[in-house]
């Protein structure tokens, strides 16, 4: 009987600690988001979102940073979407289980593991200096594009895997070649999933700071970018600069909260949409 009680106490404590850890995660998440929303919401206004910064950044809006982030993300997805989808098609449709495939997979995993600041160094050495693109939208987009490539590949692969084998078999049985099957049957069926997954890549690219620090981001630009060779302001970099390097750190505090709220709404909003869509697609395929 004594042993029995001890076992019950252990079980109670064990399950308690497990639940506690979950509580810690959810609570800290609520705390972080709640704080940013609480402090930032008062700053957000139509003017804040649509106007230039003024009075050496202590007043005005963050419009150029929003525009800059938009361009960078658009560029990044343009670079990595075709590459990522094609990689995923090879992995899921053509490749067998040989040594080559292990190398390809190892490459993708290694790419996913490279620290973001190293991507920044790489972008600086290759795009900014070697190709001579300078600090620009182009350099930043290319750097971010490489960074999110593993995300796109992973999402596309999941979408391709979800296409039932019978679709392919039916198409091949009708005499279609492998490529015709992929093009006309597999890809259309997988497209919603691929697009949904790519939204996750958008969220990732929008929030990264270190890769654009030396490749694209500017502290302040007087005019909006006119070509892909222009430097841009960007939301994450704006937060960093105002919070650490500006000359009026405490004066710009409200702008920092506001920018953080805009960035977080953008990234979490985009990710929530992707997660909800993905959950629906998964249900449909089940």
């Amino acid at each position, binding site marked *: 009987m004594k042993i029995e009680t001890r076992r019950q106490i252990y079980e109670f404590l*064990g399950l308690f600690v497990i639940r506690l850890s979950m509580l810690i995660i959810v609570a800290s998440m609520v705390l972080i988001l709640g704080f940013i929303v609480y402090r930032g919401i008062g700053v957000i206004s139509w003017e804040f979102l649509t106007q230039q910064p003024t009075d050496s950044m202590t007043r005005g809006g963050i419009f150029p940073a929003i525009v800059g982030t938009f361009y960078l993300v658009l560029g990044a997805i343009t670079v990595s979407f075709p590459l990522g989808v094609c990689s995923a098609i090879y992995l899921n449709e053509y490749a067998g289980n040989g040594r080559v495939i292990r190398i390809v997979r190892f490459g993708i995993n290694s790419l996913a593991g490279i*620290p973001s600041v190293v991507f920044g160094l790489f972008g600086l050495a290759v795009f900014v200096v070697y190709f001579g693109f300078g600090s620009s939208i182009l350099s930043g987009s290319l750097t971010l594009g490489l960074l999110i490539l593993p995300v796109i590949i992973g999402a596309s692969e999941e979408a391709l895997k979800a296409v039932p084998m019978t679709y392919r078999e039916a198409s091949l049985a009708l005499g279609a070649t492998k490529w015709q099957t992929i093009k006309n049957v597999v890809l259309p069926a997988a497209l919603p999933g691929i697009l949904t997954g790519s939204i996750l890549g958008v*969220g990732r690219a929008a929030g990264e*700071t*270190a890769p654009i*620090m030396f490749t694209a981001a500017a502290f302040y630009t007087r005019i909006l970018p006119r070509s892909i060779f222009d430097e841009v302001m960007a939301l994450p970099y704006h*937060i960093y600069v105002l919070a650490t390097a500006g000359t009026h750190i405490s004066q710009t505090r409200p702008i920092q909260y506001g920018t953080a709220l805009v960035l977080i709404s953008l990234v979490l909003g985009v990710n929530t949409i992707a997660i909800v869509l993905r959950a629906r697609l998964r249900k449909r395929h089940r």
Partner: protein
Amino acid sequence: MSQIKQQDKWLNRNRIEYLIQGLFFLLSLVSITIVALVFMFLFKEGVPIFRIVSVREFLFGKLWYPTYTPADYGIWPMIAGSVVVTAMASLMAVPIGLLSAIYVSEIAAHRIKEFIKPVIELLASIPSVVMGFFGMVVVAPFLQNTFNIPTGLNVFNASLMLAFMAIPTISSISEDALAAVPRSLREASYALGANRWETISRVVVPAGLSGISTAIILGMSRAIGETMVVLMVAGGAAAVPESIFDSARPLPASIAAEMAEAPYQSNHYHALFATGIVLLIITFGFNLLADYLSNKYKMTEN
């Protein structure tokens, strides 16, 4: 005649098929090519520093004064900073990450699971600059007042923020590992009269251990490479930290903080790229280990 044409068409069709397959194959090599290029360019820009200092002096030198004459290029304080911060972050993130994975996989009801998994995914997607910002404006003043220390921007604060960035990685990969443990093992354990906790701690977790170790390694790799948090929150002093409330400058922070000021092709520039090489090799090593463990795991599963 028409039959020959038909045959030609078939041959042509075949040739196109091969071409397309080849094209996809080449495109799938892009990732590994980029990894190779990253190594190549980092070495190209970083290695010239070793004409001035030896590898040993660079790695183990305790002084970092890149802009002085004569300059000192020792990154030992940064390596120590990275190690300390990552180790402390792991101390916090591993238990919480693993326990939350157990919760999701073994305890949560289906509906709660559907809610909690996206929450963890969203935690992973909070931009690092926002985590750093939160550390600066909330955690730092709190630490400063609570412990009565000169600054809240220190090793402890950075570790805490890094832990939250590593938790989602550890949690989601561990959960996959636990979910892959066959149901029959759990049933056998219950049939022997074990309760839930005994089943979890003595059957399910040990069975998923190799997957869990992969998760821990990838989580640590994420923490050691994370830049914005340590740049904004760790304090930035280029000295080996001696207490958890000391200021530190981990490797990524050193690169990010100084790159903008280092003139192109100067020794400082090369030294920062060499710092990048060290960081890259560390994270690459972690990934190799994770890859090895997860392959080993697959073998035991079959």
